């Protein structure tokens, strides 16, 4: 690898680039999907290549190729330089990435059981057992389960002298039972929606999930939802389960704190942010019990790594402290615009994509409540869990989310089951109404393996640590 990276950096320097870096990436994916007792998909994919990023004449250039040869490295580096020259034709300022960052290091995800060493037969057997469990519930039309494993080996070298090699391993799995009734379709998932829960971990994470032990319950709940009444429309107290809260944090906190969005880099696609820079350090994001942290170092989180794709080390930084907005997710270039140093959030979806600011693990820190006490303390309200639909405006203010399941809370107890539950609000008003967060016992870092951003779109794997929490005065039941 060193020969390839050295060649790229030499060519860039000769061509006049003031900065250059090269990333080599080799990614392996194993995917198994079982549906209604049959292995519906089983694939093993590998993908490799490199990308070269340069600054020349104050403009950015990036080019990439799947062909790992010295000749191709020379061609691609020269193309990156040509592109940077073209970028400089339309600029209003020079790119400034701040002071140099130099690290020489290696990082590997700590795993107990290498998921790629676990026999395929064992994985298939597990999913077939879970599939059968879901279909024990009469009325389940589609039982679907899956396992996903990723191994990414990547190298980073920069003209400033960094040379970093990393191996990231991910394991994920989940169940999804769909029940079909007259004119209605209802779904339940476990342990999370979007098909699965995932983390930077080995096969031990799959074993901890107990997919088989939860399968029948998931099927039964999907069927029960078909005959449940619609969630009523009202303004009430809302308690969100941990996985739905993970999605809430993702959409209403994780995205608006991306500093490239704040500066308009995503304006034409996903949008901008209401958390503009004059709000930093003073804006009341939520109630005083709301503490949110970006933590790329927490073991097992899907957004955990050693170094980002600009060579900045993984960090834990405060985002919201006692309800006040105090920090962004940054890159070298955006941090420099605020007179700061990068907090290590630049990641690329493979060798052929330029790094963007991505969430790491954006965590709502745990509070003091036991879940049972929280329900008992709530006279009237709704409990919602597990995301089903999600939509938020392009400044991340007005949101509307739907959940797979909901229960009425009456006199401190969970009661009537509801289907098609939705709630809506404006981000800071919603978080201002947060008056209770459950404790560490109920807290987990949930993996979100489908975070989209950028053009061409890049999918990032990120995490959110959450425990159930309570919110006052929330509009629920939007769908009639």
């Amino acid at each position: 690898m060193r020969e390839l990276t050295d060649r790229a950096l030499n060519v860039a320097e000769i061509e006049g680039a003031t900065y250059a870096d090269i990333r080599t990436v080799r990614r392996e994916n194993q995917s198994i999907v079982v549906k209604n007792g049959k292995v519906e998909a089983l694939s093993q994919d590998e993908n490799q290549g490199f990308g070269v990023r340069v600054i020349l004449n104050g403009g950015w250039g990036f080019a990439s190729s799947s062909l790992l040869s010295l000749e191709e490295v020379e061609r691609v580096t020269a193309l990156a330089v040509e592109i940077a020259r073209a970028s400089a034709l339309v600029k209003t300022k020079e790119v400034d990435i701040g002071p140099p960052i130099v690290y020489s290091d290696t990082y590997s995800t700590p795993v107990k059981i290498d998921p790629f060493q676990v026999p395929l037969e064992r994985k298939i057997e597990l999913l077939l057992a879970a599939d059968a469990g879901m279909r024990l519930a009469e009325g389940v039309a589609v039982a679907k389960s899956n396992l996903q494993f990723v191994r990414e080996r990547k190298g980073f070298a920069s003209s400033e002298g960094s040379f970093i090699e990393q191996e990231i391993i991910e394991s994920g799995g989940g169940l999804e039972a769909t029940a079909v009734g007259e004119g209605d379709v209802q779904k339940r998932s476990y342990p999370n929606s979007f098909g699965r829960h995932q983390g930077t971990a080995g096969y031990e994470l799959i074993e901890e999930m107990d997919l088989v032990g939860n399968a029948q319950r998931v099927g039964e709940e999907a069927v029960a939802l078909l005959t449940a009444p619609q969630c009523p429309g009202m303004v009430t107290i809302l308690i969100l389960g941990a996985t739905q809260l993970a999605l809430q944090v993702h959409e209403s906190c994780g995205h608006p704190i991306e500093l490239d969005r704040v500066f308009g880099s995503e304006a034409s696609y996903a949008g901008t942010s209401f958390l503009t820079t004059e709000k930093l350090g003073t804006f009341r994001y939520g109630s005083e019990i709301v503490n949110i942290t970006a933590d790329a170092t927490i073991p097992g989180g899907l957004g955990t790594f050693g170094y980002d794709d600009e060579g900045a080390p993984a960090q834990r930084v405060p985002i919201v402290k006692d309800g006040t907005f105090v920090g962004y997710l940054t890159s070298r270039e955006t941090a420099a615009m605020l007179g700061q140093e990068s907090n290590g959030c630049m990641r690329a979806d493979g060798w052929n994509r330029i790094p963007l600011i991505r969430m790491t693990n954006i965590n709502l820190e745990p509070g003091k409540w036991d879940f049972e006490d929280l329900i008992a303390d709530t006279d009237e309200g709704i409990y919602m869990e597990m995301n089903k639909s999600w939509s938020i405006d392009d400044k991340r203010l007005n949101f509307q989310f739907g959940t797979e399941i909901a229960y009425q809370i009456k006199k401190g107890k969970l009661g009537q089951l509801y289907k098609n539950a939705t709630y809506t609000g404006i981000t800071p008003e919603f978080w201002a109404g947060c008056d209770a967060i459950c404790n560490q016992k109920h807290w987990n870092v949930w993996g979100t393996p489908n975070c989209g951003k950028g053009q061409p779109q890049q999918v990032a794997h990120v995490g959110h640590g959450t425990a159930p929490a309570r919110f006052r005065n929330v509009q629920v039941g939007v769908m009639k």
Partner: protein
Amino acid sequence: MLGERKMREIAERVLSLSAANQTEVIIMSEDSGLTRFANSYIHQNVAERNVGLRVRAVVGKKIGVASSNDLSQEALERVVERAMTIAKLQPENPDFTSLPSPATVAEIEAFDEATASFSPEDRAKAVGLVCQLALNNGLIASGAFTTGAGELAVANSLGIFAYYSTTTADINTVIMSDDSAGYAAATAWKVGEINTEVVGAEAVEKALQTRNPRELSPGRYPVILEEYAVADMLETLAYLGFGALAVQEGRSFMVDSFGKQIMSDAISIWDDGLDPTGLPMPFDFEGVPRQRVDLIKGGVAEAVVYDSYTAGKEGRASTGHGLPAPNTYGPVPGHIFMAPGEASKEEMLETMERGLWVTRFHYTVPVHPKLAIVTGMTRDGTFLIERGEVAYPIKNLRFTQSYIEALANVELVGRATRLQQSWFGGVRAPALKLAEFEFTGATEF
């Protein structure tokens, strides 16, 4: 670009390496560039050259898939071996019948040399025009301009070999002031058909018109939806319900609706991968020729699209809408058209007593897929219409609305159509005037 001869040679090598009962190989190549701009300057400018190889091995009724983007002999052998091993390890899938057999693929024109050779400098100059237009009007520009060329070859051991090459060009821009935004976009497979100045001017005009937006209470309003919003609706309907697997699993709005009037008789929707006014693609990822499929005809639910797996379950032929294996979501139409009507947008405006003009939607997601109830926001150009005229721009609204019900209440259909890029290909749609649309929330801008 690898070219047809090279792709055929690789495909033959892969097929000869496989000892499976049936084998399919997909080879793709891409050479593309994207110039992204924000705050009226280029902040991201990228190029990519990639290839891909995907092998599906069928052993009895057991199927394994492996892929790589390494085309060395060693990698080809590894991928074939892996697909075979995976297939052998699993139980039989009784629903699988066979990989498809050869059929004649139509000759189409979808490759434009000028687009394939469009340089980073060419894109920068085009983007510079849009940025300058914005700056001239005291506004800021953001957006992306993509050009590229691609090839696809599909071969299988039953004798299929299909190859085509294509180009695409796509520009989209959002022009903004402190309190307003305007959007415009254009897509074609010939870059010469895209006039970036026209695109820029359209977005600039919207950004100027939407200054000082006022609040409006959510509720039911008649709407004029521009082509951008209608394309978003069609794309959502396509993946929710116009594929055979969605019907077979009971999750589609088309279930129990075939032959019934579910939309206004002014609405006809079809999929046609051969139409040169879209982004043509003559065969699917199984090498099956794409057929035109009438999905909705005069408001009546007519048909959905099939791949070989879903077609095999019903003992019928694939319509040529398969996605790359393994595909658990089922076939999806990727070349969607809505029939144009007679009206101009001016006529739509003049005939509206009180309602909303919506340029585009943002972040649309299904709330209830079976009923096609979708929520999303308006964005980049939303206006209140009163007595046939634009009264004033309004702050954006959230809608929660069944798309099927919305399309059952069509008053006018636009005579012009626009092509938009979609997840699976392209969508060509007219503007629509609808009798009502339910807005359920409001935001602060």
